[in-house]
């Protein structure tokens, strides 16, 4: 008779394995803590030099002897571009999500979802390239110049001759980049609304749009907000496309004065000036300091977003396609 020997593995390995996987899992937490620590120490010089006014100041003077740095214009720039991207991107994303969940016939559904995924997959630097050499000309000629001609003298944020590399262009491209994120999560959330809710609305004689307004939106409101905040998180952290399109202003001029004027965000100033700052200098410390501020802003936004959408995000980004 044949005896089959099953080598199951020794119990010691079980313990080792469990510990090893626990360590691997904790790695992430350790990294986050380390980031705070390292960025703080790397930027120590600037906090010692400027103190809290680093957050409110707007100088950007690298001249030896009268060095002074303030991050306020860039913090403002980040929020302005991210905010504009949200104003443009969120409605479009909700519209796309509505199409995918309520209106699209089956074959269109997966095709369109695929297109959205591809949009998300395009690297930021290619968005920047396309924005710089293609899109910006269209924006400048078809939107910026007409708006400037019509309202430039009266409306402050349409003033200034538009060249195309400005806050407006950066914000529009940023909006395009965050649409996939917001749209796909919003779609997940809308699909999760039980059909019994829709039926109740249909029974009352509601049109498709009224069903959406009455049964789907109220049910999914907090999830949609969470999806939008996730988009905001992405917009805040986006670097390359913004860097290539925003026009690279520094110092007090970097405060957003017009949509058609150059600007600067926290991520773009770091990318733009890193090559010029010598290691160990105050300039470098200032850039790392901006990075620390960006870290805190981004992690705060992401935590809020996660709290709102936790379960649904997993289903979406874990490649479990609906």
């Amino acid at each position, binding site marked *: 008779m044949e005896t089959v020997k099953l080598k199951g593995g020794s119990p010691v390995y079980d313990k080792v394995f469990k510990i090893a996987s626990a360590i691997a899992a904790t790695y992430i937490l350790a990294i986050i803590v380390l980031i705070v620590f390292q960025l703080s120490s790397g930027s120590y010089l600037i906090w010692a030099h400027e103190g809290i006014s680093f957050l409110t100041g707007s100088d950007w003077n690298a001249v030896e002897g009268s060095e002074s740095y303030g991050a306020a214009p860039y913090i403002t720039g980040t929020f302005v571009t991210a905010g504009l991207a949200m104003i443009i991107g969120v409605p479009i994303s909700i519209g796309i999500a509505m199409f995918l969940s309520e209106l699209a016939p089956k074959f269109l559904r997966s095709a369109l979802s695929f297109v959205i995924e591809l949009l998300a997959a395009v690297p930021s630097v290619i968005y920047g390239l396309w924005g710089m050499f293609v899109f910006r000309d269209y924006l400048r000629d078809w939107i910026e110049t007409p708006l400037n001609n019509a309202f430039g003298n009266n409306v402050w944020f349409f003033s200034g001759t538009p060249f195309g590399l400005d806050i407006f262009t950066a914000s529009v491209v940023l909006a395009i980049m965050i649409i996939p994120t917001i*749209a796909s999560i919003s779609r997940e959330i809308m699909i999760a609304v039980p059909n019994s809710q829709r039926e109740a609305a249909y029974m009352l004689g509601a049109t498709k749009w*009224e069903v959406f307004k009455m049964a789907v939106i109220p049910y999914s409101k907090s999830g949609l907000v969470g999806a939008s905040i996730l988009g905001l998180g992405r917009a805040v952290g986006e670097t390359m496309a913004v860097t290539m399109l925003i026009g690279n202003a520094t110092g007090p001029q970097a405060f957003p004065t017009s949509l058609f004027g150059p600007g600067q965000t926290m991520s773009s100033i770091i990318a733009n000036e890193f090559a010029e700052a010598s290691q160990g200098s105050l300039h470098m410390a200032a850039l790392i300091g901006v990075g620390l501020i960006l870290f805190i802003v981004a992690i705060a936004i992401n935590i809020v977003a996660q709290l709102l959408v936790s379960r649904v995000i997993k289903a979406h980004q874990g490649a479990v396609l609906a």
Partner: protein
Amino acid sequence: MITIEQRAEFRKHFRNNIQSRLVTDRIIKGIVFGCVALAIIPLGSILLEVIRNGAPVLSIDFLTQPPGAVGSDQPGGIGPAIQGTLLLIGMSSLVGVPIGVLGGIFLSEYGNNRFGHAIRFFNDVLAEFPTIVIGLFAFVVIVLTLGYFSIIAGMFALSIIMLPIITRTTEESLKLVPVTYREAGYALGIKRWTVIFRILLTSAKSGLITGIMLSVARIGGETAPLIFTILGSSDFFTGFDQPMDALPLRIWRLSLLPYDTATAQGWGAALILILIVLSLNIGMRYLFLRKRGGGGRFRITTGG
């Protein structure tokens, strides 16, 4: 009790608004179609322009030669950038994949407690994080400590970026494996870690591969972290302690040069990069759609 007569009375208060409601419905549908178009058009334009501007530049020389002198009529190619990207992806995966898979196993098999929830939460928080901050972090930790820009620093940064994705997809894929597989293994007396490795991971294979492909596509296109870590270079790989080039970085640098040849090369490099990233995405979708739910077979090996 509302009688039939009373119902008729009440119905007189109903407005005859059906037509206007239907018109509103149709308008909204139009707006929604418009939103969809607004998403499709940029993608079409990007792909079109990259192909249109990048294809003419492609050649064997372009793919294999190092860049020539800036602005000269020997523009050279992007060979080092392609090599750099491939090296970076490979090395980052060597670090990121094992840690990520182990972390995902932990969350799926041992992580149903408060500690696991905390890890899962912060894993997701770090998932869509500004990569420029990660790059700065790698700069402070690796470059400043070692004293030079190198592929090691780049690898460090990229492995951190790919980690949350792999952890999450591993956990999700393992969760899709039916509990019965685990129970069958334990019932046969097989130890937990063997069950996980031999049985569960094999079943979840396609999900895992999907996750790895996803994260590779992600880090392949990252530029910001590379600025502070590998710095960029015009040479092929010369050592683990030397700066290096990579596709996204080269595209950026080329776009900043005022020469048309540089711009054209930028488009060419973009075409290569998009081909890599998109084929990974398409391949991943195809692979996943074929084996929905992480199928696959497991084998119990007997003997030694």
